[in-house]
């Protein structure tokens, strides 16, 4: 049995849950595969921490798939258990550091959303170099882009940043599913044309 765990984190309203749903659907049509992973949704309110886990499970054979000691999977990713982490907010990337190990791939967005505590002058927001150096203590595979800016420039809106980030995941990690599986899902959904273009932009980062 092989696993590939992806933690996707960010803030309410950034499209985190959608990213998880796309990634899960991309794995659906294959045999000997299982997919699960829970979401942490922050009510209806904005700016709260949101995370979703995508766990791909690849069984060696049918008997492993039917083995009760193998075929049940936690909806969570354990500490150090993520093959990849995507974060759409720089500070939150550090909150996801617990999922990382030395081989994990990290993809994060450079545009900060300043929390209230910083707004009130009670704490300060960490600079990008600090974030990167903290992450480097764990893994060297760190990639960051200003997904907000890219999305605004190419689409005149922020809504495509999450799909661009998914493209980047395929470009920078050894995720064991084909980009075409994601493209098939995007092609069926709403805003297919723009999403496919966004995914392509991510793939070429």
């Amino acid at each position, binding site marked *: *049995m092989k696993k590939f765990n992806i933690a996707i984190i960010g*803030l*309410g309203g950034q499209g985190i849950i959608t990213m998880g*749903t796309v990634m*899960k659907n991309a794995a*659906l049509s294959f045999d000997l595969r*299982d*997919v*699960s*992973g*829970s*979401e*942490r*949704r*922050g*009510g*209806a*309110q*904005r*700016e*709260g*921490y949101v995370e*979703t886990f995508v766990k791909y499970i690849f069984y060696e054979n049918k008997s492993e798939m039917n083995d*009760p*000691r193998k075929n*049940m*999977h*936690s*909806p*969570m*990713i*354990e*500490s*150090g*258990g993520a093959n990849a982490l995507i974060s759409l907010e720089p*500070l*939150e990337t*550090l*909150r996801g*550091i*617990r999922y990382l*190990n*030395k081989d994990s791939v990290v993809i994060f967005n450079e545009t900060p*959303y*300043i*929390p*209230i*505590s910083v*707004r*009130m002058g*009670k*704490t*300060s*927001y*960490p600079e990008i170099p600090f974030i990167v150096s*903290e992450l480097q203590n*764990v893994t060297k595979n760190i990639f960051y882009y200003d997904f907000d800016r890219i999305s*605004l420039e190419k689409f005149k*809106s922020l809504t495509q940043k999450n799909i661009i980030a998914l493209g980047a995941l395929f470009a920078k990690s050894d995720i064991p599913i084909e980009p075409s599986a994601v493209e098939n899902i995007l092609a*069926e959904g709403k805003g297919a044309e723009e999403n496919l273009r966004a995914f392509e932009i991510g793939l070429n980062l």
Partner: protein
Amino acid sequence: MGKSNLFINGIKGDKAIVLGNEAIARGALEAGIGYASMYPGTPASEIIAVLDKNKKYIENLYTEFSLNEHISLHGAIGASWSGVRSLCAMKNVGLNVASEPAQFLSYTGVKAGLVLAIGSDPGAPSSSNEQDDRWYSLHTYMPIMEPSNIQEAKDFTRDAFDVSEEFSFGVVLMAPSRLCHNAGALYFGDLKDRMEIKGDFKKDPENYLNLFGMAVRNHAKYLERNELLKKYLIDSKFNKIINGSSSKIGFISSGVIYAHLIEAFDILGIYDHKILKLGFTFPLPNELIKGFFKGLDKVVIVEEAEGFLEFQIKKIAYETGFKGAVYGKEYFNPTGELTIDDVISGISRFFEKPPPVSFDFAVKKDKELQAKLPQRSGTFCVGCPHRATFYSILKAVGFSNTEEKERDVVIAGDIGCYTLGLLPPYNAMDFLTCMNAGLEIGQAISIFDKNKKVIALVGDSTFYHSGVPALLNAVQNGADILYIILDNSWTAMTGHQKTPSTQKDIDGKPSQNPLNLKDLVKSLGVSYVKTIDPNSVKRFAALIKGALKESGVKVLIAKRECVLQEIRRNKSLNKNGGRSTETGESLYEIQKSRCVKCNECFVELACPAIILKKDEDKVSDYYYIDPASCVKCGVCYAVCPNSAIRKVEFDLRNEFKLSDKSLQITI
């Protein structure tokens, strides 16, 4: 969910990515329910929402967002007694409200199957407590099923209806938020013929009447049925034993925690111990547990919360003369969510075997770092009328969050989106417990502490839930309190279910029988009642000030629709109104030259669309309204004491002109 809506049409062999809550709803559909209701509550809301959304495509399905859980469960009982299978859902604390019907349900029994799906919330990410509702069953005798994953969420729900009918109990289906909001692959089953669903209430006085001796007889009957159910559960398909090798150690677990346990064993490379997976965690037959004990000298119970299984199993161990040791809460935390990490750590400690290096390293790194990071909490959406309400209240009572100053009014909190007002920067609540505790506790404080003014807050949905008697009580008993009803027309927090205040649906369709809240309040005997648009912050603050000077019960209705719904409706009606984020027709702008950074808009009001931007020199910074997130509510414009914020209006050829008329917000 798939494009062809498998939720409604899916048949055996179909497969889709489905949310845990949707799987529960689908299981109920496969069982042929005709009734589904709830009072919305995270994490359970989608269970009924998905049925309600699709009911126009489903024959003979009645759905209801009831005003509270007491009504909702009674509705399910009525449907069951009419011979229609019924599903009732609620969040963990909902059962406190529905505990009364739950208490009677075993006495009377069911006719058609009845399932109560409860979304529990360990760690309380969306709740005001993390109670474990399983304990209720020690006196309600409702059997409890605990699915471990999405497939079981559906299959158990479907089967629960059969068990319910066979043993005449309402069956509880427990799903923690980790399952409710787990999304993964689901294999569908077949649907029942929905044309067979038909109500036919048959009188059954022997079971349905509970009084004096009749109640005692019914009590004896359900204890008997409980024994029959126990017998059935000794070797049912729901409780499974995985045999170990020669190990004398056994593990017992259930639900999502069982899934954590199996994966934890795999991560730790432990495969040789006996495991009991409980699908039913109440009742537990002695014979089942005794059989599992055979050949073991140590048993470890892996469960969340305070040890409901441990409590029962230790009793059985005593009764069956088990000589070994039973462990549980020594290794697994009784409070907070029990995560996969907690299970890995607990198992490692039990076996004195270290977890993988990467695990330890990650845990340590996380601990080290978290203390250094700024906290982040959720806040009101951009343009949310609640933000304006809190701003107005704090201004009216002379409080500022930029100066360290005590606020001397007592503010009673309640449950809803507006609960976020207890967080910084507003810090505008002094207590918060359950639904409608605000006014009820506040009333007594107003009687005993005459030196402080008391303001109680409530949302429209919470008010209709059980606030009407609370308000009537305050009036009848001469409370001295200001009651502010934050009427945004929706149960917004749980995904926008309708309330009696809802005037129009998001497709613009008017509600059938919307309530006039002001008339209702008046009819309860409140003579001081005023309605205000919370976005008119200056007027609102003045009103609050005035109301606090009056004695008796004063009610202010802060009426403005949830901004998300308003935007959605504008989008669906395809008109871009003044509030759409998409248009360039007008925008609010901070004039750098005029802004003195007094923080009135940035910290006191704290609209997230107002952000700090770095100047080109990269050293100094300035406040800036982000046009991509501003929804043009105009509140910042109203609060700026320095006239630094202006409204810029564009005409269609993209030329702009400045608005000189001050923004008039009418009620």
